[in-house]
Each structure stands twice: as C-alpha cells, then as structure tokens.
C-alpha cells in the first residue's frame, strides 16, 4: 500500500506545479490534501507503480474540481427563453479590464451566427468611452445597442434594453457592466441592485487568465454579491497559465463555458476540462 512517506515529495512537486500554473495557493493546497487522502492506503503491486497511480489520481482530482455543480449551456438558455416568448437576459460582470466588453462582442457574434437576434445594453456608464467602445462593436456586428449618457444609472440603461428587446421581440439582451474593484462595497451593491431589477437568466463572470491568486477573491466576492452561473476566461492566448479556472470553479462551482483566445470576434473557444488538465499535466507551454 501507498504510505504518506511514499508520496510526500511528489505531492509537494505537484502542488508547486499548480501554483506555477497560477492556481491559487489555497486551492493548490486543498487539491494536494484531497489527493493525499485518496492515495494513502491504496494498494499497489510495487513501488514502481506509484508515480502512475499518483498521476492518474492527480488528473482525477483536477477534473473533479472542474466538474460543474450545475450544467449551464448558453444556447440552451437562450433557446428556452425564446420558447417562453421572452428575451434571455445575460449579465457580464468582473473586475476592471478583465475583458467583459470584448467578450460580449464575441458572444453577440456567436449568438448571431446561431440565428438569434441580439440587443446589447451599454450599462457601463462610468468608464471613459465605454459606451463608444460598445457602439463600435455593435455597429461592426450589426446588432442593436441601447445606451444612455455617461453617468446615467446603469440599471436604468439595462432595463431600457430589456424593454426594447421585449417590444421588438428580440431573443437576447447582453448587459455590459462597468469593471469594478470587488473591495468597493458601493459598487458591489450597485451590481446586486441591477441583478434584482433585471432578474437575468445568467450571470457570467469574466475572469482574466493572466491573474493568479486574486482570481479566488474576485470569484468569491462576485459570487457572494450577485451569484455567478458560469464563467469565461479571457486572454488565454496571451501566454497565460490560466490556473484561475481551477480557482474560480473551486469557490463558485460554476462551469467555465468559454475561453477568450484573441481580440477578434471569433476568438472564443468552448472550454473543456480535459484540455485544461492535459495542459497542466503535460507541462505544455501555453
């Protein structure tokens, strides 16, 4: 059987490997502990078999973290709302500069390609030229943008967009929100209020693949305030490690739906846990 002493070193290595991949320390430690519990006492034919057993266990442990606590499918959500005769409402949230607005443009393109009609709500009324940024995307994509003035109440702008979509029989409303520091309670409360008013079908957390330990605090706090249904990780193309997927899954249980892999509209890739796990285990560089 495998003893603790047999695997201490290898577990240390795996933990460091996770941390090197930008998995939060806390999450890396908990994966290590799980794995240890799983392996110690397990029967093996000989010591030489241990590395293989550990690798298999490690793979399983990672996959189990990425196992969503509930299934979420973007297209199904939109289709279901359409069948109910109402627009699906999808809110995008995240910290400053994580890629929300760009991701919304990509998702709008994806939905449009699937034959759905899209309305975008420019509910970031705070940042300079946030509205103009979306305007340009909406124009290029040929989708409707509902906007207000800089400084307007973001919830009111989003609400207008929903009313517009209802009146025109549109299929989906994508709500862009201002990036915010999760440490700012007022801004988090504002988001909570928006959610209460809009009752969205989905809240999508947009996280940055370049982020390390902070991903966990971000996901935790946004989850606490608005509840995260699923996540999209951006900038995966930017030589990013992307361990944030494990951190986000671990603290929210929300599935990662897509990865952002570039700045073009088609640079949105379906996420697969297996792909990520191979990337970590294979030690492949980005």
């Amino acid at each position, binding site marked *: 059987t495998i003893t603790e002493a047999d695997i201490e070193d290898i577990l240390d290595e795996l933990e460091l490997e996770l941390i090197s991949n930008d998995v939060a320390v806390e999450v890396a430690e908990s994966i290590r502990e799980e794995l240890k519990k799983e392996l110690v006492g397990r029967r093996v034919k000989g010591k030489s078999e241990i590395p293989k057993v550990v690798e298999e266990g490690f793979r399983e442990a990672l996959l189990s973290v990425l196992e969503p606590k509930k299934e979420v499918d973007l297209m199904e959500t939109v289709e279901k709302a359409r069948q109910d005769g109402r627009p699906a409402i999808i809110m995008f949230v995240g910290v400053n500069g994580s890629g929300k607005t760009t991701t919304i443009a990509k998702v709008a393109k994806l939905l449009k390609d699937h034959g759905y009609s899209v309305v975008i709500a420019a509910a970031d009324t705070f940042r300079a030229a946030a509205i103009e940024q979306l305007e340009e995307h909406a124009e290029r994509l040929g989708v409707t943008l509902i906007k207000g003035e800089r400084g307007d109440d973001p919830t009111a702008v989003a609400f207008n967009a929903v009313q517009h979509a209802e009146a025109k029989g549109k299929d989906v409303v994508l709500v862009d929100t201002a990036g915010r520091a999760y440490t700012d309670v007022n801004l988090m409360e504002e988001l909570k209020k928006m959610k209460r008013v809009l009752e969205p079908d989905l809240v999508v957390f947009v996280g940055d693949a370049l982020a390390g330990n902070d991903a966990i605090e971000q996901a935790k706090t946004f989850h606490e305030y608005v509840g995260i249904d699923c996540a999209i990780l951006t900038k995966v193309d*930017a030589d990013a490690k992307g361990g944030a997927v494990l951190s986000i899954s671990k603290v929210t249980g929300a599935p990662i739906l897509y990865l952002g892999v570039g700045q073009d509209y088609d640079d949105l890739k379906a996420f697969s846990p297996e792909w990520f796990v191979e990337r970590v285990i294979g030690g492949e560089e980005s």
Partner: protein
Amino acid sequence: MIGFADRLAEITKKIKGASIIDEDFVKEVVRDVQRALLEADVDVKLVLELSKRIEKRALEEEPPAGVPKRDYLLRIVYEELVELLGGEKTEGLDIDLSRDVNVIMLVGLYGMGKTTTAAKLARYLQRKGYRVGLVGADPYRPAAGEQLRQLAEEVDVPVHVEDVDDAVEMAVKGVEALKDECDVVIVDTAGRDRLSEDLIDELREMAERIEPHEVLLVLDATVGQKAGDHAEAFHEAVQLTGVVITKLDTAAKGGGALSAVARTGAPIKFVGTGERVDDLEEFNPRSFVARLLGI
C-alpha cells in the same frame, strides 16, 4: 482566505514571540514567508531563491551588538523584500526641461490600465508645473482614442490622436504635433503580449522613432506567474525604465510586479489605487513592504 498582509503579520508575530531562534524556527519562518509570497503571486522560482537567501543569512549572520536575534531575523526578511523591489529609494521620472520635449511611453499587456495611467500621469505632472500632452497610439481597440480624449478633457491637457491605422505613425505624428506646446508628452499604446510578435516589433519601431526618455510597463496587481516573462519581452524590445502597478485598491497583492522588477531591473515608480485620474501615488518601497509585513 488569509491574505499576504495577514500572513506576514502572523509571521511577524511569530518572530516577535519567539524566545530562542534555532534552526527549526528559522526554517519554519522561511516556510511562512514562502507561502505568503506565493499567495502574493511572486514567481515560484524567485520565491525559492529568496527563501534560501533568507534562511542562509538567518543561520549564518550574527546580529550586531544590542540587536536581539529575533529582531534581526525580521530585519533580514524585510531587507530581502526591499532589495527585491530595488532598494529603499524611489526613482522619479527622468524629465529635463532643456530637452526639446520629454517623451514617456506606456506599454503593457491587455487591460492593465495604460490609458487610465496616461491620464493620471498627465495630472500628476501638470500639478508639478509641467505642460503635458497626451498622444494616442492604439489603432486597434475600439474607441481607444475616444477614451484618451475624454480623459484628456477631464485633466484638461491637449491630446492628439492621429486618424490613421498605423500605430507608429500615430505616435510620431502625435509627438510632433504636441512637442512645441508641451514639456512632456505621454504616449498611450495598445495592449500586447510577448507572443504577439508583430505587435512587439511595432513597439520596437515606435520607440526607435520617438526615442522615449521613459518607457513604463503598466502591470496590474492581479497578474501572476507570467508577469516576469512578459516584462522581459517588453524590456528586450523597448528597454523599460520603470513599472507602474495598477489596481492596488483591490486585495490583489502585486507580486507579479516583483517578478517584473527582478527580471528587468526596472524599478516600480508609481502605483494606481483607483479608477479616477487622481488615484496615482509615487511608489514607496518602505511603506509597501512595511504594509506587507504588518509593521
């Protein structure tokens, strides 16, 4: 989760509380420091190097007369961290009014806060009495020029965004347009990463043409293990003269910036502490580390 500052405060308490400092105790403290630094996103290799140095010094060096051993251990941890940051003093910007014009270029990864920082720096320099201008050189991001224009209006400085789709030309024309009326022009560039070779080449060419006196890497406090690699690529292309860490108003620790400094030798010069144009502070290594150590 226990944050970096909490961790180090804990370590500090542990050190202060220890009556004898033996090898086991030193090792335990070093392990704690290690964990804290990893939680702060400092490069894994760098953490291992640093902790080895701390351990070695703690075991070998005799504290000066009158300094209790435990205080000395604490001082070693502190010193090594400050050392990592490039020393106790903060370097200011290289601005010389006898020059035709002083050029500051801001570079970095996507969404780090370059454009916002350009406006913050404009305000900061304006308050010091300089005539400052902003130049837009990001032809890619939708409304990047408009963002800079609105921010320029807010800080009330001239701005030039040449209406072409070539980033180098935008920078050259912009500096040209503003250099007579300004002492300092700040050039805002598009986000890019070490793998985007064309964009890195574009940056190199831009720097060759506008010959910046300062090239600041803008890095947000959330960036993790890859910060050092990216910083190095920017450094190779355009010779960084400094780093600005943004988004320090969150709980993110900014350990990525330590890796960037370690790999390039470029010192941290400013920190961004919010979204508004006034939210910029001169970097203070002493208080930064003191804050981290909880002392």
